[in-house]
């Protein structure tokens, strides 16, 4: 039976927005074709909704009511001083930078030309000159991509294309900064590629920040494709800090070769409606991943973390630790799937998801899923939901610490256990400062 599904206003607006933007999006004919195919595919998919298992708790069809125009202005002014303000605590992380303003590369704000070990380029510029084959690779939807990734293909304007060359060990991290500025509502789609060649190692931090005063009506779709080569290592972090309203849809697809190491930390605060998707596949034996994150949600903010870890080969190890603080009507969603394929003997997988509920109206949905088809494996998962312990609060207060500060200390310690996972000390410090700021304390401790 073929039932024509009624399109929502937002779905219709997406198609219209594409019509209006298509001419101005970067890329040669082959890219244009890809985009047109993608929007066609999206047309039949529609926005993900609660009857699609992976989107059960984060129903975009119901929650995304309007679509903002694609941000096509590639000359939004932003000074270095404003960039520093937008970066906040992240400005203290000693790193090379590549900077995008409203989804468009801004050469004057970056300093990656001499980043040792890295080869960095901007996707938008590549698309203007690349051959058909390269372009097609850069603007394709990942295999098994969902509606959100499909939309990324249709609308993507720019992003960082990063290569860590074979055997290089990049000492300084690369910070990929996406800044939002300007007073009008906008929708941005960006895409990054991070390729770490055999034997190389690097730290890459992806930051999504806002210049204070920028329009809060904002929609982001970011896709990052990561490959980590044999014996290579990538420490990856995504930091997203906003002011409580923005729609933030991100996917990260990671492929690991033999004996590769991949660490990813996701920090989210002040995101209106967020989906942090992370898919990792082990393609070579001996791979190791550590996925972790901390998120803070208050008012009616909603933060969804959805992980799929695919142990396709033997002898790989995965660790997952996600911690969320939920205040007011804040809602946290954690979906963690671990697949162990029939061949993947000696798999070692552990998952933990924890929420701290600061109000009775907060909500936490946790859905761990272990799909194990091999027999010689060690896999486990756990979920905890807790409130602040009144006895601990009393203990702090009996030492003279006022209630507000005692609560903040407890919350910081909870989220701190996740932040501990970040290996870069300056980044750890910056994330702790964000948490402190979120808690409304001065960060000058």
């Amino acid at each position, binding site marked *: 039976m073929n039932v024509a599904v009624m399109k929502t206003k937002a779905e219709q607006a997406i198609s219209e927005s594409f019509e209006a933007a298509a001419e101005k999006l970067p890329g040669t004919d082959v890219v244009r074709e890809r985009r047109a195919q993608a929007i066609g595919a999206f047309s039949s998919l529609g926005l993900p909704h609660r009857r699609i298992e992976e989107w059960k708790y984060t129903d975009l069809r119901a929650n995304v009511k309007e679509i903002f125009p694609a941000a096509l202005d590639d000359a939004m002014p932003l000074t270095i001083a404003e960039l520093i303000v937008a970066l906040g605590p992240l400005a203290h992380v000693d790193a090379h930078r590549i900077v995008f303003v409203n989804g468009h590369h801004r050469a004057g704000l970056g300093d990656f030309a001499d980043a040792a070990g890295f080869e960095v380029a901007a996707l938008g510029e590549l698309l203007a000159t690349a051959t058909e084959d390269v372009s097609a690779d850069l603007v394709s939807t990942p295999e098994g991509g969902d509606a959100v990734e499909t939309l990324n293909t249709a609308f993507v304007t720019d992003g960082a294309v990063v290569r860590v060359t074979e055997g290089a060990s990049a000492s300084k991290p690369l910070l990929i900064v996406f800044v939002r500025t300007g007073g009008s509502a906008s929708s941005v789609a960006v895409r990054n590629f991070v390729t770490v060649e055999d034997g190389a190692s690097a730290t890459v931090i992806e930051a999504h920040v806002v210049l204070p005063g920028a329009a809060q009506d904002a929609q982001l779709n970011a896709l990052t494709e990561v490959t980590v080569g044999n014996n290579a290592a990538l420490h990856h972090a995504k930091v997203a800090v906003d002011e409580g309203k923005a729609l933030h849809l991100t996917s990260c697809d990671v492929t690991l070769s033999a004996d590769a190491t991949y660490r990813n930390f996701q920090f989210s605060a002040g995101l209106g409606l967020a989906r942090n998707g992370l898919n990792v596949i082990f393609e070579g034996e001996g791979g190791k991943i550590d996925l972790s994150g901390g998120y803070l949600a208050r008012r009616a903010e909603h933060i969804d973390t959805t992980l799929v870890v695919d142990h396709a080969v033997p002898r790989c190890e995965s660790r997952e630790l996600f911690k969320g603080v939920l205040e007011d009507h804040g809602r946290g969603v954690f979906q963690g799937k671990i697949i162990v394929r029939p061949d993947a003997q000696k798999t070692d997988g552990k998952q933990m998801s924890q929420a701290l509920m600061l109000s009775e109206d907060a909500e936490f949905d946790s859905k761990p899923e272990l799909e194990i088809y091999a027999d010689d494996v060690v896999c486990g998962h756990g979920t905890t939901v807790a409130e602040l312990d009144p006895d601990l609060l009393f203990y702090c207060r*009996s030492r*003279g*610490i*006022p209630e507000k500060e005692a609560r903040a200390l407890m919350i910081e*310690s909870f989220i*701190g*256990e996740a932040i501990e996972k970040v290996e870069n000390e300056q980044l750890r410090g910056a994330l702790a400062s964000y948490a402190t700021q979120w808690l409304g304390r001065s960060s000058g401790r």
Partner: protein
Amino acid sequence: MLEIKNLHVKLADEDREILKGLSLTVPKGEVHAIMGPNGSGKSTLAYVLAGRDGYEVTDGDILWNGESIIDMEPDERAAKGVFLAFQYPMEIPGVAGLTFLRTALNAVRKKRGEAELTTPAFLKLVKEKGQKLNIDVDMLKRPVNVGFSGGEKKRSEILQMALLEPTLCVLDETDSGLDIDALRVVSEGVNALRDKERAFVVITHYQRLLNYIVPDKVHVLADGRIQKTGGKELALELEKSGYAEYTHKAA
């Protein structure tokens, strides 16, 4: 001076009276021991002095230096000099002892109108106090009390007390679960803090602690009231005869 006057305390969510007209005066510079059978209300008294939720004062008053503290928040009391060394010190995962103590000390200093300490000044102070009390301050680098032995927890309480410099020190069964060595360190710590500006309320079930911390007075608490007051020899008497006499009286 601590003055507890006809104190009646019940559990907040239960109609059960625990302290039933307790009166007690502890002048500055003195150490008073409170002894009593299990369940007689010793910890309740300690908690009510420190301002824990869950108890309701239905009658009577507690004055510290002439000022009623029963309506004060726990942190206000701490700023006024009240300190409770817990019978079961709490573990705070994820918060380093040094962070915890610096936050506490600076909060108290702020309320007392003193300047906050810089990090180096704070670390110097911690080291000094540790040396004086014979306590290794390295344990403060770890999360508060996490994974500490019973003895370490009590030592950490005494170190906290020394740093916060309270004027009313309430010790709830600080001796429980301690071996002789730990008991000695803890007692020496307490003795080092004794001075004419400080009052101590030392709660214990056994006389043993009082060999090390020699009290000026001993009170027997049973059935929610002070049943008898005497000198340090009263503790020895109790050691021999037990609390039967008082619990009987209570029943």
